[in-house]
């Protein structure tokens, strides 16, 4: 029954599992890791209840999980899996295999900090460090976005111009285990939205024999990699188009970036994930004090939406980049490095001030974000074009 919007309380993990249920993938091969466990637990309930037709493959590690996903995807199956932090790191080798073999696998990431020391809480480093693996990468702010991005990712990944795997992530515990209001879609809506046939050009079939994953020497490797880059370039427009279609179908606005009160803003926050939600709340507080604050939330991280960001930031004097990922010895935060390259030498760009925060699940509080705003203003006023700080820790 398309068009009827049902509202339920769901945690981020439950939202992802419920969205995956509507997608009804052919194969799910996953290994549990906190904070993703609820996704696969709920999904395996759906499998055993017969609510989905999925073949669920319990595997012995994340490396095996992604390997099983690649094998399944090469037969033309629609494949879904989930992981986090150490699990994502363990499957890292196969992430490259998946994208090299052009398997449109969808991976839900429950963003969690890396060990050592052991920490199970929300931090986006795990997904950030996969940005070079030729996967589409999206971040979500809430359980609703986790739900929506599950469905979106399949359509982007399986587009014939793209045919690359896609990962999307929400912070562990802060989003995955927190209950929020989620508007769900109907099965019919999702079936109508997603393409029926798997559009891959080459897949294992009994009628035709081919080889996948051959040894390739110096003379052909780079060409095959270039194919992936061309797919990524096309993925930018494909994502925008898919998000437009999703907006129309669901009534919820989905765009590669979200602009919040940026039109007349002078100083802006740039962030992704749950921190973006806090940034928006702080913008409101600052506005009520007369400050011209704005916020930009990044949903699509790879391919990097340089054009949209450049346009959104026109007129902004300085940006506070709230980055919940760890990088060491770097000229800027991970997001700052990408942003800096995207804006370098262009006209009318703001000064960039990176703030590494929230590592290990520590929450960057609203008063702390307000302090960051003031700090950025001071940096800008003394003429600093780029800075990097760690905030919210005790020295």
């Amino acid at each position: 029954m398309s068009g009827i919007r049902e509202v339920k309380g769901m945690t981020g993990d439950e939202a992802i599992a419920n969205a995956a249920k509507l997608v009804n993938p052919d194969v799910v091969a996953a290994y549990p890791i906190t904070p993703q466990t609820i996704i696969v637990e709920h999904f395996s309930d759906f499998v055993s209840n017969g609510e989905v037709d999925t073949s669920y493959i319990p595997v012995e590690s994340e490396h095996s999980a992604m390997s099983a996903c690649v094998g399944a995807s090469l037969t033309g199956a629609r494949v879904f899996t989930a992981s986090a932090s150490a699990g994502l790191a363990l499957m890292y080798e196969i992430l490259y295999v998946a994208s090299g073999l052009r398997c449109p696998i969808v991976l839900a990431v429950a963003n969690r900090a890396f060990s050592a020391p052991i920490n199970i809480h929300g931090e986006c480093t795990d997904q950030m460090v996969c940005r070079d693996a030729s996967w589409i990468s999206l971040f979500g702010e809430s359980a609703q976005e986790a739900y929506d991005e599950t469905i979106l990712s399949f359509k982007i990944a399986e587009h014939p111009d793209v045919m690359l795997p896609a990962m999307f992530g929400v912070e562990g515990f802060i989003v995955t285990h927190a209950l929020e209001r989620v508007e769900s879609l109907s099965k019919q809506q999702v079936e109508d939205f997603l393409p029926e046939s798997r559009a891959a050009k080459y897949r294992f079939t009994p009628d035709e024999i081919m080889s996948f994953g051959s040894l390739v020497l110096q003379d052909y490797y780079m060409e095959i990699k270039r194919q992936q880059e061309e797919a990524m370039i096309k993925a930018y427009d494909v994502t925008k188009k898919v998000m437009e279609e999703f907006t129309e179908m669901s009534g919820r606005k989905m765009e590669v970036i979200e602009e919040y009160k940026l039109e007349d803003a002078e100083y802006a926050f740039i962030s992704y994930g749950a921190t973006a939600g806090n940034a928006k709340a702080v913008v409101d507080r600052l506005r009520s004090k007369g400050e011209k604050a704005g916020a930009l939330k990044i949903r699509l991280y790879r391919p990097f939406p340089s054009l949209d960001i450049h346009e959104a930031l026109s007129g902004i004097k300085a940006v506070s980049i709230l980055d919940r990922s760890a990088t060491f010895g770097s000229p800027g935060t991970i997001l700052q490095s990408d942003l800096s390259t995207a804006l370098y030498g262009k006209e009318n760009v703001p000064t960039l001030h990176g703030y590494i925060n929230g590592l290990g699940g520590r929450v960057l509080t609203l008063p702390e974000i307000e302090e960051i705003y003031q700090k950025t203003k001071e940096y800008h006023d003394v003429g600093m074009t780029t800075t990097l700080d760690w905030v919210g820790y005790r020295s």
Partner: protein
Amino acid sequence: MENMIDKKPPEEFERWVKEKWGSSKIPEGGVVPYHSSYGYKTGAWSAFKAVIDKEKCISCMNCFYYCPDSAIIMDENMKATCDKVFCKGCGICSKNCPADAIEMRRVTR
């Protein structure tokens, strides 16, 4: 030298190699069509070749399954024959022949 089947790679693959295709023409993901391996004459690598005594051969097909290059062919009498164009001389067939019908003969000086 015996070469029982005229093994040639598919025409599209030969063009691919000859014209040195780039990223826009290579199949997505570097998928190669069946029998592209026929373009690589691995027999040129070897110092030894398998020589099969058809009188001793019992048609068990061990060598057929074990050969890593698929260079053993069963002839019309179901006796094993070595395709010398592709035989790399590894000796696995000889080691696994229960009838001792295969001899690895040196072919280079």
